């Protein structure tokens, strides 16, 4: 025991020499430090959330009342398309990669990511990719307007902006693949001695599985958009019916990527929530191994359900049935997860600090999104719901109150470890309750609109839909304030926050809480000696 403590102390002492590179270029542009790169990713994602949020503001302003008031329909379509691309590829995914960069080495006792130079590359490609994508807004003819799913022939009927968008998607894809390879190598090769696979925190597990999904499906997306590009500019006919191609085939290839992609955006969220709930319930995670296996089976199943996005293209009955049942099967491991989170809270001595509130909000609201997903999975029902606002409500519940809530929860949870300062609980809770009110005002009425038959991706609509659209837009304007709140809360904390302790949260377990707050620039330069009580999930039989 004594030797363990001494070893721990030695590591701490060593870490105190911070050796941060000085100067903007050396510190940020040429950085290979996992913490700095994590910060860059998170700042980038925050900026993208603001840009994408502004676009959704345009969309909801236009939809506030029937008729065309602010923008012309062409620009409206550009907004829906670019909003989605920015939020998915610029917001959610980089935010999770940022969290992975910060936390995975800290959670497995590694000094850095396995491939630090590639890490620098994978971040610095992103600003260029999004500059290219966003510049298309200023091209003659404007940005791509055929929807983020880029279905041909519609997506190919715009101007040359589609070429820029495809180039940007290629760059994002390369960045994601590099990030994923780095995460896999780090987790499989850099764990401190004693950090067995089945002792890893769930955030690490979910990211390991997500990284495999990424290297499997991002290249498929790259292939699909490459075929679009050659169809448009080089006379091939992959999807061009006049030349013997098949536009439905694009949908198959796209969704072969697209469905695993939605799990790429939610599995790390599962990981985050599985870290936070045990901390504030002061109980080990219920069913740790079940969680790992559930994650793996969700990832596997995500490859065989893609055609639930295209039930209405005219598939044979056998195909419809297969994809319906396969899709419903995903609800089983997902249900296991929700059950385990609830059981972790059951009879726990819970406290409701800000991260816990966001995590509980996640569990409840994500589950609503899961249920609407199950409704959409029913083939005859989907014939009615497809391409209506019901689908929009579904995926915003899983992505905003799911993925985004978990990102915000993670930031509040680990912020004291990153900066060494606490944020204001009062304002953190205000941020949460404000969001809960407005996010539900924003997205819940969209279920009703969809059931009543309001199509998605339209700038004008029947007056019968007016009331719920007004309420939804009010919700949107309330939501537009939330990045400002979050920025002010974090800014205030950085400047004036109370000092954080090493463990930060009373019930927190895991290696990241054994290093000082703020985490020094270099941690675990010598592998830590792992004590059972330091592990987030010390006893894997739980």
């Amino acid at each position, binding site marked *: 025991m004594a030797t363990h403590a001494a070893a721990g102390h030695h590591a701490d002492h060593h870490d105190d020499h911070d050796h941060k590179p000085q100067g903007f270029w050396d510190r940020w542009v040429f950085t290979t430090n996992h913490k700095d790169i994590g910060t860059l990713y998170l700042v980038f994602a925050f900026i993208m959330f603001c840009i994408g949020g502004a676009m959704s503001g345009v969309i909801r302003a236009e939809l506030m009342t029937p008729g065309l008031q602010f923008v012309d329909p062409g620009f409206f379509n550009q907004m829906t398309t670019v909003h989605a691309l920015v939020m998915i590829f610029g917001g959610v995914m980089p935010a999770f990669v940022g969290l992975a960069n910060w936390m995975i080495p800290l959670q497995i006792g590694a000094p850095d990511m396995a491939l630090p130079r590639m890490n620098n590359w994978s971040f610095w490609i992103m600003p260029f990719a999004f500059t290219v994508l966003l510049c298309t807004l200023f091209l003659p003819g404007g940005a791509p307007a055929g929807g983020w799913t880029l279905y041909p022939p519609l997506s190919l009927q715009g101007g040359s902006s589609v070429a820029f968008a495809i180039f940007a998607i290629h760059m994002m894809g390369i960045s994601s693949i590099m990030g994923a390879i780095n995460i896999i*190598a780090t987790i499989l*090769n850099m764990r401190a001695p004693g950090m067995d696979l089945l002792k890893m925190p769930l955030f690490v597990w979910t990211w390991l599985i997500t990284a495999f999904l990424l*290297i499997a499906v991002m290249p*498929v997306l790259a*292939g*699909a958009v490459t075929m679009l590009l050659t169809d448009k500019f080089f006379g091939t006919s992959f999807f061009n019916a*006049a*030349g013997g191609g098949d536009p439905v085939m694009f949908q198959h290839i796209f969704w072969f990527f697209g469905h695993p992609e939605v799990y790429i955006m939610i599995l790390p969220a599962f990981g985050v929530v599985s870290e936070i709930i045990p901390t504030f319930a002061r109980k080990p995670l219920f069913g740790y191994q079940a969680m790992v296996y559930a994650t793996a089976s969700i990832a596997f199943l995500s490859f065989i359900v893609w055609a639930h996005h295209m039930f209405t293209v005219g598939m*044979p009955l056998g195909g419809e049935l297969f994809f319906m049942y396969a899709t419903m099967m995903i609800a089983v491991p997902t249900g296991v997860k929700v059950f385990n989170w609830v059981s972790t809270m059951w009879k726990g001595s819970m406290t409701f600090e800000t991260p816990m509130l966001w995590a509980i909000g996640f569990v409840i609201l994500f589950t609503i999104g899961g249920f609407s997903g199950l409704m959409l999975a029913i083939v005859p029902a989907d014939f009615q719901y497809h391409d209506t606002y019901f689908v929009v409500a579904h995926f915003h519940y899983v992505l905003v109150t799911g993925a985004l809530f978990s990102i915000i929860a993670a930031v509040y949870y680990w912020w004291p470890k990153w900066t060494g300062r606490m944020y204001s609980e009062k304002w953190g809770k205000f941020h949460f309750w404000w969001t809960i009110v407005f996010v539900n005002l924003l997205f819940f009425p969209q279920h009703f609109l969809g059931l009543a038959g309001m199509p998605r991706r339209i700038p004008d609509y029947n007056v019968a839909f007016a009331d719920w659209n007004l309420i939804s837009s009010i919700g949107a304007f309330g939501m537009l304030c939330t990045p400002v709140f979050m920025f002010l809360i974090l800014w205030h904390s950085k400047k004036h926050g109370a000092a954080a302790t090493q463990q930060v949260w009373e019930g927190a377990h895991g290696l990241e809480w054994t290093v000082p707050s703020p985490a020094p620039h270099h941690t675990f330069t010598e592998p830590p000696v792992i004590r059972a009580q330091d592990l987030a999930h010390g006893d894997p039989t739980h």
Partner: protein
Amino acid sequence: MSAVNRRWQKKGWLIAGGFFVFGFALVPLYEIACEHVLGIKLDQGAVDAEAAAAMAVDESRLVTVQFLANTKSKLPWVFSAEKVSMQVHPGQLTEAWFDATNVSERDIVGNAVPSVAPNSASLYFNKTECFCFTEQLLKAGESKRMPVRFVVDPRLPKDISTLTLAYTFLENDVATKKLAESNQAAAPAS
């Protein structure tokens, strides 16, 4: 440590590269899956005329074949079927005629894409000759009568009594552009 990391890097890129290739392999796989797993014929080629003629005619059964003629909104052609539907015996070689008129001021090459519904019948619907097998050129204002010869396989499942054969004409942009260029090149000479 770093050697192992590099090995993982190499493996990662190999997997990613493999999936990039797989993305393109989905193109033929899609066709194979349609034809051999789901029983939908995508192949637009002709069947052997002799084999079709050798099919035994099933006089005891009549199948209704309906015809649909569509153009994509961008193609300025008027396109229609001469008969809306026909009653045929399975195994009997039948001919149907379609009319197309180019109502625009320019020469246009079009391609017709056929589709058979219900799709479980597509395996049993054989064309020996069709205007959809080749590009169709209609000069400005020109009209054309076009045949399709088909035979319904007698093995057509008993529960199918009506088939729909739908054609959609699309402009073949590449061929039309080539045509315009060669017309232009020829113009000064003539």
